[in-house]
């Protein structure tokens, strides 16, 4: 992976990309252009079917675009080997996507093993990652995913995604299945890790509260097109249209309702 040095800015550049799915309920994308800067935490938000996950999946070529190009660190991803590309990008799937027949340690070690790391290095890295995601190695090392809580699963998934020290982290609704308390704790840890490692991060969610808390910048999608990008403050102060305004209003309305209830 030669794209680790002399990192240009922007790191990921999506140029006029389209993807259509014939007829089915899958989310297509049309003419999307978006850039993510190095070390930036970008949240892609929109209602279901708006093309968020499709956009995310085109970055590591889990989905191939019909039109347009995606550049990562100055290289056209269409010209890279997709398998090598994916090994170099961390990905946390919806509901974790852990392999149920493997232990926590084996799940974390998947990509290092694919890359042929030696065993001692793999073991050291597993310990390092379990510490990073705050899971006790003694208790979790040999556990299977079905014996983990939702939050623990997401922590393991994060450790797996970070195993080979990628510069890019993709997260697809990583906290969707978690209860609110756990969600907040995991989200805060993800943000800490992202910042301390300087990871260029793109996360998909439909929860504006989450987006406002985590994002450096928010990209709002609707029906396959990008409606607006900007910081939380920009979106709040200058929503591009009523759709964005409504979306951004939701957390505020909730907060007000809550304050009212508590005041009673």
């Amino acid at each position, binding site marked *: 992976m030669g794209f680790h040095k002399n990192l240009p800015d922007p790191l990921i550049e999506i140029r006029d990309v389209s993807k259509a799915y014939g007829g089915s309920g899958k989310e297509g994308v049309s003419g999307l252009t978006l850039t993510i800067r190095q070390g930036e935490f970008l949240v892609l938000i929109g209602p279901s079917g708006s093309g968020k996950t499709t956009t995310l999946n085109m970055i*590591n070529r*889990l989905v191939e675009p019909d039109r347009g190009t995606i550049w990562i660190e100055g290289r056209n991803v269409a010209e890279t080997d997709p*398998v*090598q*590309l*994916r*090994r*170099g990008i961390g*990905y946390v*799937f*919806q*509901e974790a*996507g*852990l*392999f*149920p*027949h493997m*232990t926590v340690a084996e799940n974390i070690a*998947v*990509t290092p093993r*694919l890359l042929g790391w030696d065993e001692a290095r793999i073991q050291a890295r597993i310990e390092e990652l379990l510490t990073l995601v705050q899971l006790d190695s003694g208790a979790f090392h040999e556990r299977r995913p079905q014996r983990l809580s939702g939050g623990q699963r997401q922590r393991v998934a994060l450790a*797996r995604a970070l195993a080979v020290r990628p510069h890019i982290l993709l997260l697809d609704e990583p906290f969707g299945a978690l209860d609110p308390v756990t969600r907040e704790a995991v989200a805060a840890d993800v943000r800490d890790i992202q910042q301390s490692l300087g990871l260029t991060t793109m996360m998909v969610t439909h929860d504006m509260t989450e987006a406002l808390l985590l994002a450096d910048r928010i990209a709002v999608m609707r029906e396959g097109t990008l409606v607006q990008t900007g910081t939380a403050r920009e979106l709040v102060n200058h929503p591009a249209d009523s759709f964005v305004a409504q979306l951004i209003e939701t957390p505020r309305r909730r907060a007000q309702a809550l304050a009212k209830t508590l005041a009673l």
Partner: protein
Amino acid sequence: MNQSFQEAWALLPDYLSQHVILSVSALILGVAISVPLGIVAARSKGIGAPVLGLVSVIQTIPGLALLALFYPLLLALSSLTRDLFGISFRALGFLPALLALTLYAMLPILRNLVTALNGLDPAILMAAKGVGMTPRQSLYKVELPLAAPQLLAGIRTATVWVVGITTLSTPIGQTSLGNYIFTGLQTENWIFVLFGCVAAAALAMVLDFLLAVAGAALSAGSRPRLALAGMGLIVLIAAALVPGLIHPSARGVVIGAKNFDEQYILADVMADRLRQSGFAVSQKIDLGSTVALRALAASDIDAYVDYSGTLWGDAMHRTDMPGRQAMLAQLKSWLAQRHGVALVGSLGFENAYVFAMRTDRAKALHIQSLADIAAHPDLMIGGDFEIFSRPEWRRVAVAYGLSTMRRRQYQPDFLYRAVMSGDADLVSAFSSDGRIARYGLTILDDPKGALPPYDAVLLVGPAHAHDKRFLESLRPLVGAIPLPLMQQANLMVDRDQDKRTPGQTAAWLEARIAQDHPQ
């Protein structure tokens, strides 16, 4: 009873060993074919649907029929390869049984694997791709391990099926635990039948248990338990191979026998005589009626006893009736020219198709011959599995106007029960059967001569057709066994009390022959 049990017990190492070797080979082959096929079938609907359909259809073919079909198929293939490449192979016994059983093993393995692979969580497959696995790595590291429990369940089902169906390989010349069942059924030795069933069931249960332990160990990730189950399987298979090693497959000469008592007795008599002349002898018993001659011609067996009328109709496809001596002469030259088989001579008795009735019933209806039957259109005739499709029956039916008569088919041994109990009014029977006299049945005359003669004739295969020592050791049997003697011998095996085994009866018969024909 106790003696039957001891005899059965003594045969167990050989039968069990051959049964295990055949079943396990078929299962290994079935897994080896089904797993790659299942992977391909799961990835491509265009291949999956027809493959699964075909394997399901094969499953609907009755086991015995599938096994039987492979014999002529391999025979044709063998003669083809002999013509093309000069290589021929044995079409009888292990090979056809192995192929048929492999086909049987495939369905549960294939179906479970395809179902498991198609049922995998798409999110997991996406994750495998997402962490950077190639399609092959995804298959080996994720898809197959996750499909493994269902695959193993399929293998367990296949194991139980195959171990059971392996018993049906006996009639195509492969020794198995089925030998107990087929022989027991013929000689009404229920200890044998039961012994065979219990042994096969026990084997199936043990194999299934070991696979279950292996499966549980696999899903729990327990290496020691997996090793234990693997050891168990290896020990079982190794133990099965031991009898084959102790008695190295010095095949020697092979005496064949069809699947009834008289044939077992005569095969034992022939085997004893050849042993006395210094030959190493083995036997292949329970051959299908028409399989036997083909097996002889192909040198799968070296000698057996057949019947002139059977050969005339089934092998030569002749329907004319030139008379006893002319028939024998024509048979002899045809066998020599066509198959290189030597017809050594007639043993001295006939085992003819006859029709028999309870004497009291025959008297009551005033029936003495087949010609009297037509006057009673409501009579029920019982026959064995082949009689109604044989030319003999067609001739009898035409000659005596019996074509529309009501019929029922029975396993040969139950024919006598059927006529005695009144289930059937008359039954086909064999003239050398000791039970005709024992049950006091009346044999109906054949005034129009519709039934051909069935002289028991001694046949020797191409390998020994000109082997003087071989022929001389069997020749004293020619003309030495008159009908009453054979009937008596058959009855010793068939009767319910003071029952003898074919081996014991053969010794008795040899003593009687020696007494009657001092050399």
